[in-house]
């Protein structure tokens, strides 16, 4: 399941990923760190972001699956302490769950069309890509 949304992330159904075959569920949350800005601004191309994240999850499944995953990334304005992205991966064993979750966030950061900007005194400064 892939969600690109403005709203805060609903965590109430995360454990629904657990099936009789699940032995581990890993959660990764990326949050807004206090780096001197007033807030962060995220922009995205929703359709393409959902499409590319779906491809990334399939890749993770082919390498460490079977996995069941939920990836949620927010866009719009976000303040310090808020959750930007939440990745939940259920797998048969913890190693596969950790590796798949790590793969998904690392690939997200280089392939998925989402952009982050620092906003300070109403000035928007777009942040460069991680490997740029």
């Amino acid at each position: 399941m892939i969600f690109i949304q403005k709203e805060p992330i609903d965590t109430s159904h995360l454990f629904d990923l657990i099936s009789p075959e699940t032995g581990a569920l890993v959660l990764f949350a990326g949050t807004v760190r206090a780096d001197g800005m007033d807030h962060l601004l995220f922009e995205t191309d929703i359709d393409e972001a959902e499409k590319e994240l779906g491809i990334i999850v399939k890749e993770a499944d082919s390498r460490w699956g079977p996995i069941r995953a939920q990836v949620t990334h927010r866009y719009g304005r976000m303040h310090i302490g808020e959750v930007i992205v939440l990745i939940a991966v259920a797998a048969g064993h913890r190693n596969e769950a950790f590796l798949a979750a790590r793969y998904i966030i690392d690939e997200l950061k280089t392939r998925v069309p989402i952009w982050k900007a620092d906003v300070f005194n109403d000035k928007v400064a777009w942040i460069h890509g991680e490997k740029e």
Partner: protein
Amino acid sequence: MKIRYQTYARFVEFFGKEGDIEVIPGTTVQGFLELLTGEDEKKQSLLFDENGTVRRYVIILKNKDRILNEETDSTDLQDGDELIIYPPVSGG
């Protein structure tokens, strides 16, 4: 023939959010990008490396399909094609 393009985030400051450019038949994606930057060195450096190759972390979509950066020179455009040009992503 007319090609429509769209950009996001910091590329909007340089190329605008979207636009149309008239090109001659046989223009490739690479040729279109060169028209888009013109002689502006800042714009050129955003899209191309020192060899004139599209930068690795610039992502190009033609009619919603990603094209490999090394294929921009061999990908022809047709009238009405739509290009999306993503700056390097920075989500997460």
